[in-house]
């Protein structure tokens, strides 16, 4: 018993070592996924922008799944993902936009430059709606089913390899 006791510190260190070894090389910034998946989208009603009508919760409950893209004119990755959004639209998706901490002029300028795939755009001037979705940043893209339930969250910009996956998620949400 006594001899076994002297081994405890070594064993504890071995445990710590394994834990730290496993944690090595993991990204610094944790990715915090939304916990709203499977729950109804938050209640909101936003003014329109970029020549599109505004966006409200009712617009998400249309009987068919939609994509909600969170973007901003000041966000560079949002410009990067513009062609992919267009590809999603061409693939038959309905895109609804939420412009975060933005002004109508800047949104209009951004869309003129990078294209406007959105049917509706809501202007979230203070960024509070982001919290309602459980979003951790901009850009993000959500799949909402026909009953207004959030089905899927994509964090970061949509890259070419994500287009098919998002279309498949839309299909799943039907």
């Amino acid at each position, binding site marked *: 018993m006594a001899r076994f006791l002297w081994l405890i510190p070594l064993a504890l260190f071995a445990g710590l070592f394994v834990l730290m070894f496993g944690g090595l090389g993991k*990204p*610094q*910034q*944790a*990715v*915090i*996924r*939304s*916990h*709203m998946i499977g729950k109804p989208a938050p209640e909101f009603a936003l003014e329109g922008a970029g020549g599109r009508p505004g966006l409200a919760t009712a617009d998400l409950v249309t009987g068919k799944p939609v994509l909600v893209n969170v973007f*901003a004119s*000041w*966000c*560079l*990755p949002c410009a*990067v993902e513009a062609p992919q959004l267009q590809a999603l639209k061409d693939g038959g998706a309905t895109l609804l936009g939420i412009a975060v*901490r933005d002004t109508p002029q800047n949104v209009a300028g951004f869309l003129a430059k990078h294209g406007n795939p959105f049917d509706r755009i809501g202007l979230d001037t*203070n*960024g*509070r709606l*982001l*919290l*309602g*979705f*459980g979003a*951790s*940043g901009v850009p993000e893209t959500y799949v909402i089913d026909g009953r207004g339930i959030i089905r899927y969250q994509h*964090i*970061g*910009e949509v*890259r070419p390899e994500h287009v098919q996956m998002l279309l498949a998620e839309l299909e799943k949400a039907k």
Partner: protein
Amino acid sequence: MRSLAIALLLAVAAPSVAEPPPPPDVPLSDPSAEARARAVMSELRCLTCQNQSIADSGASQAQAMRTEVRTRIAAGEDPEQVRAWFVDRYGDWVSFVPPAREDTALLWAAPLLFLAIGLALVARRFRR
């Protein structure tokens, strides 16, 4: 994650497309409500920062979260309800207070458990 890293790089590389600075905080007019709001803020974790509470952060999203906290406190919610609202949307990570559950039992029992183990070892010594 890689996309996030690239996004960060891009954001740094092109300072001309900067995020607008967050608007100034507007404290609640009732000092006791403001104090309750502050207490909640100091225990909520900023999503876009490195281990900072939203009370201490200058990030835009932290500002939005502070506004949300103040609005909810002003509407009469108690601090626990406000915290729960955030946990519902972002999970336990967003609260600096770890939940009291099965998977955190060891964490919360630790102080007494460690003292008990230590006492047992010491007692063994005294008996001898």
